């Protein structure tokens, strides 16, 4: 009994979060793969006749990294925000909060759920998009940290919103009004170099622009900005976001009255 570390509990929490995804797999994994796959088909193949290349890369390949990023970050965010919000709303989060787990284990347990779902979508989408479009994976050693930092950022953001949200509308508001526009304006479908001033400059204050470019570099070996700057910006947002969600679990703020 003495010396119990809480690790087993954390692993069960991770298992619970992934079970939720697998039980609802048609909504949580299949639907985003289908919708992003349609984007690749519709935009990649229909516009490919008009926009042949961007930065020397065929257009149908150019959009693949951004679309995979978009699907993954939205999944990481919405998974955690809805899971944590529902657990708070129905109060079954008390079963976790009262259990013998450290705050960092609870935080990690909830965050892994969003990361797992996003990876399932990313891998599934990649397995379709890469052979269909012929998009290469040129820099896997950049791709892995870029994806990891991006998913930590958005899963932590989802956890934070799930903790603060008072209604389900708050969770969808952040997704529809903040994340989705930033993703679309982050260069998923175009190169920032094609934009006139001031849009060109404004894009550089969009954090998702750096994530999209880091992932694009991982796939295609090209980027609108330095890949190191992209990785630094993404990591520079992911780490504080994760620490913020950790602080919420440690302090009990908004989780405990």
């Amino acid at each position, binding site marked *: *009994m*003495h010396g*119990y*570390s*809480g690790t*087993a*509990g954390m*692993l*069960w*929490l991770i*298992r*619970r979060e992934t*079970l*939720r995804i697998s*039980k*609802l797999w048609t909504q949580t994994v299949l639907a985003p793969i289908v919708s992003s796959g349609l984007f690749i088909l519709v935009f990649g193949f229909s516009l490919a006749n008009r926009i042949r290349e961007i930065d020397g890369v065929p257009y149908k390949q150019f959009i693949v990294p951004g679309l995979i990023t978009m699907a993954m970050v939205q999944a990481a965010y919405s998974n955690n925000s809805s899971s944590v919000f*529902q*657990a708070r709303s*129905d*109060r*079954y989060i*008390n*079963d*976790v*909060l*009262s*259990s*013998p*787990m*450290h705050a960092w284990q609870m935080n990690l347990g909830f965050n892994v759920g969003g990361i797992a779902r996003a990876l399932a979508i990313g891998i599934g989408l990649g397995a379709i998009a890469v052979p269909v479009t012929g998009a290469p994976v040129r820099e896997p050693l950049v791709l892995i940290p870029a994806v990891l930092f991006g998913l930590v950022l958005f899963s932590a953001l989802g956890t934070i919103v799930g903790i603060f949200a008072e209604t389900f509308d708050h969770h969808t508001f952040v997704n529809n009004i903040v994340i989705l526009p930033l993703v679309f304006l982050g260069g998923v479908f175009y190169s920032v170099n094609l934009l006139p001033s001031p849009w060109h400059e404004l894009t550089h204050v969009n954090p998702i622009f750096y994530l999209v470019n880091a992932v694009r570099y991982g796939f295609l070996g090209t980027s609108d900005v330095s890949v190191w700057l992209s990785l630094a910006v993404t990591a520079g947002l992911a780490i504080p976001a994760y620490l913020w969600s950790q602080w919420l679990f440690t*302090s*009990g703020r908004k989780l*405990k*009255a």
Partner: protein
Amino acid sequence: MSPAPPALEVKGLTKRYDDGTVALSEFDLAIPEGKFFGLLGPNGAGKTTLISAVCNLIRITEGEVCVFGQPADCLQARRWVGLAEQDINLDRFLTVEETLIYHGGYFGMSKDDACARAHEMIDVFDLRGKVDVRTPKLSGGMRRRLLLARALMHRPRLVILDEPTAGVDFELRQELWRYIRKLHEQGTTILLTTHYLEEAETLCEEIALIRGGRLIARDTSGGLRERYNADSLADVYVKAMGAPR
């Protein structure tokens, strides 16, 4: 050899909520190991706040809470406490069986142990026919049984039951009483809050009356009747709660 620490010891516990409401004020309570202890008081008296403090569900303002001599927020102490909350708070994504197994997992049970114990609880609480049913599809009575089964799943030494029979029909109430009694006979310490005074009188060895976040009396049912010169616990309750503060 030093005497065994109390199952629950609360010293100077104060809880002030963010809106300024003081739910508990310098509250002291010690419950010896093995006792069946009842906590009575009107809504808003601080019963659920006290339970939440023991189970790490609120941020306490001041004071100290220990479970079997260990601070209530340490991992060992948390494993010793089982809680059935007043509200039904079951995970909507899980079936009956999963609810129990996952709870066991959160509380550090191995998979084999959790599975075996879950099926034991399923039989005890007559949930066999609902093993694969997700919790939102259960009837109110079944949910209440599952809530109790979940609280007992990890074999806690201190079981806290916050109005466990609220909204439960007579038959199920009798059944739950039988099981709770049996649990107590096996040596488990039980802290029960209830609004059913006959429930407290029938089950509890000792009863505390709480009002406005303060303990106003504590004794056996007979001792309280004598002290308040009352014929029943209901009379005691009326006199105690009606007395000027």
